[in-house]
Protein backbone atom coordinates (compact mmCIF):
# COMPACT_ATOMS: atom_id res chain seq x y z
CA UNK A 1 0.00 0.00 0.00
CA UNK A 2 1.50 3.34 -1.04
CA UNK A 3 1.05 6.70 0.64
CA UNK A 4 -1.36 7.78 -2.09
CA UNK A 5 -3.44 4.65 -1.38
CA UNK A 6 -3.67 5.61 2.29
CA UNK A 7 -4.85 9.09 1.35
CA UNK A 8 -7.52 7.63 -0.95
CA UNK A 9 -8.72 5.34 1.85
CA UNK A 10 -8.81 8.24 4.33
CA UNK A 11 -10.78 10.36 1.87
CA UNK A 12 -13.15 7.45 1.26
CA UNK A 13 -13.79 7.13 5.00
CA UNK A 14 -14.39 10.87 5.26
CA UNK A 15 -16.75 10.72 2.29
CA UNK A 16 -18.78 7.94 3.87
CA UNK A 17 -18.98 9.77 7.19
CA UNK A 18 -20.14 12.91 5.45
CA UNK A 19 -22.78 11.07 3.44
CA UNK A 20 -24.31 9.41 6.50
CA UNK A 21 -24.22 12.63 8.52
CA UNK A 22 -25.90 14.61 5.76
CA UNK A 23 -28.54 12.24 4.40
CA UNK A 24 -29.43 10.24 7.49
CA UNK A 25 -30.10 13.16 9.79
CA UNK A 26 -33.45 13.08 11.63
CA UNK A 27 -35.90 15.78 10.64
CA UNK A 28 -37.11 18.69 12.78
CA UNK A 29 -39.38 18.06 15.78
CA UNK A 30 -43.02 17.32 15.06
CA UNK A 31 -45.44 20.25 15.45
CA UNK A 32 -48.51 19.51 13.35
CA UNK A 33 -49.98 16.43 11.74
CA UNK A 34 -52.26 16.39 8.72
CA UNK A 35 -54.80 13.58 8.48
CA UNK A 36 -56.06 12.83 5.02
CA UNK A 37 -58.78 10.57 3.67
CA UNK A 38 -58.32 9.64 0.01
CA UNK A 39 -55.81 12.47 -0.33
CA UNK A 40 -58.15 15.17 0.96
CA UNK A 41 -57.33 16.95 4.19
CA UNK A 42 -59.72 15.85 6.94
CA UNK A 43 -58.08 17.33 9.99
CA UNK A 44 -55.00 19.25 11.00
CA UNK A 45 -53.89 18.41 14.52
CA UNK A 46 -51.51 20.33 16.71
CA UNK A 47 -49.23 17.83 18.45
CA UNK A 48 -49.07 19.49 21.84
CA UNK A 49 -51.37 17.47 24.09
CA UNK A 50 -52.73 13.98 24.61
CA UNK A 51 -55.83 13.21 22.58
CA UNK A 52 -57.63 10.47 20.73
CA UNK A 53 -58.94 11.20 17.26
CA UNK A 54 -61.51 9.04 15.54
CA UNK A 55 -61.42 9.17 11.75
CA UNK A 56 -63.97 7.40 9.58
CA UNK A 57 -62.87 5.66 6.40
CA UNK A 58 -64.51 3.31 3.90
CA UNK A 59 -63.62 0.27 5.98
CA UNK A 60 -64.55 1.70 9.34
CA UNK A 61 -63.20 3.96 12.04
CA UNK A 62 -59.46 4.35 12.71
CA UNK A 63 -58.38 5.75 16.04
CA UNK A 64 -55.31 7.98 16.19
CA UNK A 65 -53.54 8.96 19.36
CA UNK A 66 -51.47 12.07 19.93
CA UNK A 67 -49.16 13.22 22.67
CA UNK A 68 -46.71 16.12 22.89
CA UNK A 69 -44.68 15.97 19.70
CA UNK A 70 -45.95 12.64 18.34
CA UNK A 71 -48.87 10.88 16.70
CA UNK A 72 -49.69 7.26 15.89
CA UNK A 73 -52.40 4.90 14.74
CA UNK A 74 -53.85 3.28 17.86
CA UNK A 75 -56.28 0.98 16.06
CA UNK A 76 -57.60 0.52 12.56
CA UNK A 77 -60.02 -1.83 10.74
CA UNK A 78 -57.42 -3.26 8.39
CA UNK A 79 -56.18 -6.88 8.10
CA UNK A 80 -52.39 -6.37 8.28
CA UNK A 81 -52.16 -3.40 10.69
CA UNK A 82 -49.11 -1.85 8.98
CA UNK A 83 -50.35 1.56 10.10
CA UNK A 84 -50.46 0.56 13.75
CA UNK A 85 -47.11 -1.21 13.55
CA UNK A 86 -45.37 1.86 12.15
CA UNK A 87 -45.67 3.28 15.65
CA UNK A 88 -45.12 6.83 16.86
CA UNK A 89 -44.18 9.51 14.33
CA UNK A 90 -42.15 12.15 16.12
CA UNK A 91 -40.05 13.94 13.50
CA UNK A 92 -41.16 16.39 10.83
CA UNK A 93 -41.37 14.84 7.40
CA UNK A 94 -42.41 11.41 8.68
CA UNK A 95 -45.63 9.86 7.41
CA UNK A 96 -47.72 6.72 7.65
CA UNK A 97 -50.95 5.47 6.15
CA UNK A 98 -53.74 2.94 6.44
CA UNK A 99 -54.21 2.14 2.78
CA UNK A 100 -57.24 -0.16 3.13
CA UNK A 101 -59.05 2.60 5.01
CA UNK A 102 -57.73 5.34 2.67
CA UNK A 103 -56.20 7.30 5.54
CA UNK A 104 -52.80 8.96 5.65
CA UNK A 105 -50.98 10.95 8.30
CA UNK A 106 -48.24 13.44 7.44
CA UNK A 107 -46.20 15.10 10.19
CA UNK A 108 -45.04 18.65 9.60
CA UNK A 109 -42.24 20.40 11.43
CA UNK A 110 -40.11 21.48 8.53
CA UNK A 111 -40.37 20.12 4.99
CA UNK A 112 -42.64 17.40 3.67
CA UNK A 113 -41.15 14.03 2.77
CA UNK A 114 -43.69 13.06 0.12
CA UNK A 115 -45.00 15.24 -2.69
CA UNK A 116 -48.27 13.41 -3.18
CA UNK A 117 -50.18 10.36 -2.09
CA UNK A 118 -52.46 8.72 -4.59
CA UNK A 119 -54.93 6.01 -3.77
Amino acid at each position, binding site marked *: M*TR*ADAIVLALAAAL*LGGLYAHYWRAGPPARIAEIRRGGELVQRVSLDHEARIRVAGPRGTSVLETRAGAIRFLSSPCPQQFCVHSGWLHRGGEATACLPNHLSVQVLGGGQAFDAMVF
Partner: protein
Amino acid sequence: MELQLQTTRDDHRVAWLAALAVAIHALESALPSPLPGVKPGLANVVTVAVLVLYGWRAAVWVSLLRVFAASLLLGTFLSPTFMMSLGGAAAALAALGLGSLLPGRGLSALGYSVLAAIAHMAGQFLLAWGLFVRHDALFVLLPVLMTAAVLTGIVNGIIAAAMLRRLRP
Protein backbone atom coordinates in the same frame (compact mmCIF):
# COMPACT_ATOMS: atom_id res chain seq x y z
CA MET B 1 -11.64 -11.65 -52.03
CA GLU B 2 -10.26 -12.45 -48.62
CA LEU B 3 -10.04 -9.69 -46.05
CA GLN B 4 -6.95 -9.72 -43.91
CA LEU B 5 -6.95 -7.67 -40.73
CA GLN B 6 -3.57 -6.71 -39.42
CA THR B 7 -3.58 -7.27 -35.69
CA THR B 8 -0.84 -6.33 -33.31
CA ARG B 9 0.28 -8.04 -30.14
CA ASP B 10 -1.47 -5.31 -28.18
CA ASP B 11 -4.75 -6.05 -29.94
CA HIS B 12 -4.48 -9.70 -28.95
CA ARG B 13 -3.64 -8.80 -25.39
CA VAL B 14 -6.59 -6.40 -25.06
CA ALA B 15 -8.97 -8.92 -26.62
CA TRP B 16 -7.76 -11.71 -24.33
CA LEU B 17 -8.10 -9.58 -21.20
CA ALA B 18 -11.48 -8.21 -22.26
CA ALA B 19 -12.69 -11.78 -22.76
CA LEU B 20 -11.50 -12.62 -19.25
CA ALA B 21 -13.37 -9.62 -17.85
CA VAL B 22 -16.54 -10.58 -19.76
CA ALA B 23 -16.34 -14.13 -18.41
CA ILE B 24 -15.99 -12.91 -14.82
CA HIS B 25 -18.82 -10.42 -15.30
CA ALA B 26 -21.13 -13.04 -16.81
CA LEU B 27 -20.39 -15.59 -14.08
CA GLU B 28 -20.91 -12.99 -11.37
CA SER B 29 -24.29 -12.00 -12.80
CA ALA B 30 -25.57 -15.36 -11.60
CA LEU B 31 -25.16 -14.22 -7.98
CA PRO B 32 -28.18 -12.58 -6.31
CA SER B 33 -27.84 -8.95 -5.26
CA PRO B 34 -28.89 -7.77 -1.77
CA LEU B 35 -29.80 -4.32 -3.06
CA PRO B 36 -30.22 -2.98 -6.62
CA GLY B 37 -26.89 -1.60 -7.73
CA VAL B 38 -24.83 -3.57 -5.24
CA LYS B 39 -22.65 -6.34 -6.61
CA PRO B 40 -19.09 -7.56 -6.02
CA GLY B 41 -17.86 -6.17 -9.35
CA LEU B 42 -15.11 -8.76 -9.64
CA ALA B 43 -14.46 -7.99 -13.32
CA ASN B 44 -12.97 -4.71 -12.15
CA VAL B 45 -10.02 -6.68 -10.84
CA VAL B 46 -9.07 -7.11 -14.52
CA THR B 47 -9.52 -3.40 -15.22
CA VAL B 48 -7.24 -2.39 -12.35
CA ALA B 49 -4.62 -5.03 -13.20
CA VAL B 50 -4.59 -3.90 -16.85
CA LEU B 51 -4.18 -0.30 -15.71
CA VAL B 52 -1.15 -1.17 -13.60
CA LEU B 53 0.43 -3.51 -16.17
CA TYR B 54 -0.33 -1.87 -19.52
CA GLY B 55 -1.53 1.66 -18.81
CA TRP B 56 -4.74 3.65 -18.94
CA ARG B 57 -5.53 3.31 -22.64
CA ALA B 58 -5.46 -0.47 -22.44
CA ALA B 59 -7.69 -0.30 -19.35
CA VAL B 60 -10.18 1.86 -21.26
CA TRP B 61 -10.29 -0.65 -24.12
CA VAL B 62 -10.71 -3.64 -21.84
CA SER B 63 -13.35 -1.89 -19.74
CA LEU B 64 -15.50 -0.62 -22.62
CA LEU B 65 -15.22 -3.89 -24.52
CA ARG B 66 -16.38 -5.66 -21.39
CA VAL B 67 -19.41 -3.36 -20.96
CA PHE B 68 -20.50 -3.83 -24.57
CA ALA B 69 -19.75 -7.53 -24.91
CA ALA B 70 -21.25 -8.47 -21.53
CA SER B 71 -24.43 -6.52 -22.30
CA LEU B 72 -24.78 -8.36 -25.62
CA LEU B 73 -24.13 -11.65 -23.87
CA LEU B 74 -26.60 -11.02 -21.04
CA GLY B 75 -29.22 -9.41 -23.26
CA THR B 76 -29.15 -5.97 -21.70
CA PHE B 77 -27.65 -4.09 -24.65
CA LEU B 78 -29.06 -0.54 -24.92
CA SER B 79 -31.31 -1.11 -21.90
CA PRO B 80 -31.31 1.16 -18.83
CA THR B 81 -29.00 -1.40 -17.21
CA PHE B 82 -26.59 -0.88 -20.07
CA MET B 83 -26.74 2.91 -19.68
CA MET B 84 -25.94 2.56 -15.99
CA SER B 85 -23.10 0.15 -16.71
CA LEU B 86 -21.62 2.44 -19.34
CA GLY B 87 -22.05 5.53 -17.18
CA GLY B 88 -20.38 3.87 -14.23
CA ALA B 89 -17.52 2.62 -16.40
CA ALA B 90 -16.98 6.06 -17.93
CA ALA B 91 -16.88 7.72 -14.51
CA ALA B 92 -14.52 5.07 -13.14
CA LEU B 93 -12.19 5.34 -16.13
CA ALA B 94 -12.10 9.12 -15.84
CA ALA B 95 -11.15 8.85 -12.17
CA LEU B 96 -8.50 6.22 -12.99
CA GLY B 97 -7.12 8.49 -15.70
CA LEU B 98 -6.73 11.31 -13.21
CA GLY B 99 -5.31 8.94 -10.62
CA SER B 100 -2.68 7.64 -13.02
CA LEU B 101 -1.36 11.18 -13.43
CA LEU B 102 -0.28 11.39 -9.80
CA PRO B 103 3.46 12.03 -9.40
CA GLY B 104 5.94 9.83 -7.55
CA ARG B 105 4.98 6.28 -6.71
CA GLY B 106 1.33 7.21 -7.04
CA LEU B 107 -1.46 4.74 -6.46
CA SER B 108 -1.22 0.97 -6.35
CA ALA B 109 -3.95 -1.54 -7.22
CA LEU B 110 -5.74 -0.93 -3.92
CA GLY B 111 -5.95 2.84 -4.31
CA TYR B 112 -7.00 2.58 -7.97
CA SER B 113 -9.68 0.06 -7.11
CA VAL B 114 -11.22 2.16 -4.32
CA LEU B 115 -11.00 5.34 -6.39
CA ALA B 116 -12.66 3.65 -9.37
CA ALA B 117 -15.35 2.08 -7.19
CA ILE B 118 -16.31 5.44 -5.63
CA ALA B 119 -16.36 7.17 -9.01
CA HIS B 120 -18.36 4.30 -10.51
CA MET B 121 -21.01 4.46 -7.80
CA ALA B 122 -21.19 8.26 -7.86
CA GLY B 123 -21.55 8.29 -11.65
CA GLN B 124 -24.22 5.58 -11.62
CA PHE B 125 -26.13 7.22 -8.80
CA LEU B 126 -26.26 10.58 -10.53
CA LEU B 127 -27.33 8.89 -13.73
CA ALA B 128 -30.10 7.01 -11.93
CA TRP B 129 -31.24 10.19 -10.20
CA GLY B 130 -31.14 12.27 -13.37
CA LEU B 131 -32.69 9.77 -15.78
CA PHE B 132 -34.91 7.45 -13.79
CA VAL B 133 -35.85 8.41 -10.22
CA ARG B 134 -35.96 12.17 -9.82
CA HIS B 135 -36.88 12.09 -6.14
CA ASP B 136 -34.79 13.52 -3.33
CA ALA B 137 -35.61 10.51 -1.17
CA LEU B 138 -33.25 8.48 -3.39
CA PHE B 139 -30.31 10.15 -1.68
CA VAL B 140 -31.16 8.29 1.52
CA LEU B 141 -29.78 5.22 -0.29
CA LEU B 142 -26.50 6.90 -1.24
CA PRO B 143 -24.61 6.32 2.05
CA VAL B 144 -25.40 2.59 1.92
CA LEU B 145 -24.54 2.27 -1.78
CA MET B 146 -21.29 4.16 -1.33
CA THR B 147 -20.36 1.99 1.65
CA ALA B 148 -20.83 -1.07 -0.54
CA ALA B 149 -18.70 0.59 -3.23
CA VAL B 150 -15.83 1.33 -0.84
CA LEU B 151 -15.91 -2.18 0.65
CA THR B 152 -16.03 -3.96 -2.71
CA GLY B 153 -13.36 -1.57 -3.97
CA ILE B 154 -11.07 -2.61 -1.13
CA VAL B 155 -11.70 -6.33 -1.65
CA ASN B 156 -11.21 -6.13 -5.41
CA GLY B 157 -8.09 -4.05 -4.92
CA ILE B 158 -6.61 -6.69 -2.62
CA ILE B 159 -7.41 -9.39 -5.16
CA ALA B 160 -5.84 -7.35 -7.98
CA ALA B 161 -2.73 -6.71 -5.90
CA ALA B 162 -2.38 -10.43 -5.14
CA MET B 163 -2.81 -11.21 -8.84
CA LEU B 164 -0.17 -8.66 -9.80
CA ARG B 165 2.30 -10.03 -7.25
CA ARG B 166 2.05 -13.43 -8.91
CA LEU B 167 2.37 -11.99 -12.40
CA ARG B 168 5.41 -9.87 -11.59
CA PRO B 169 7.55 -11.74 -9.05
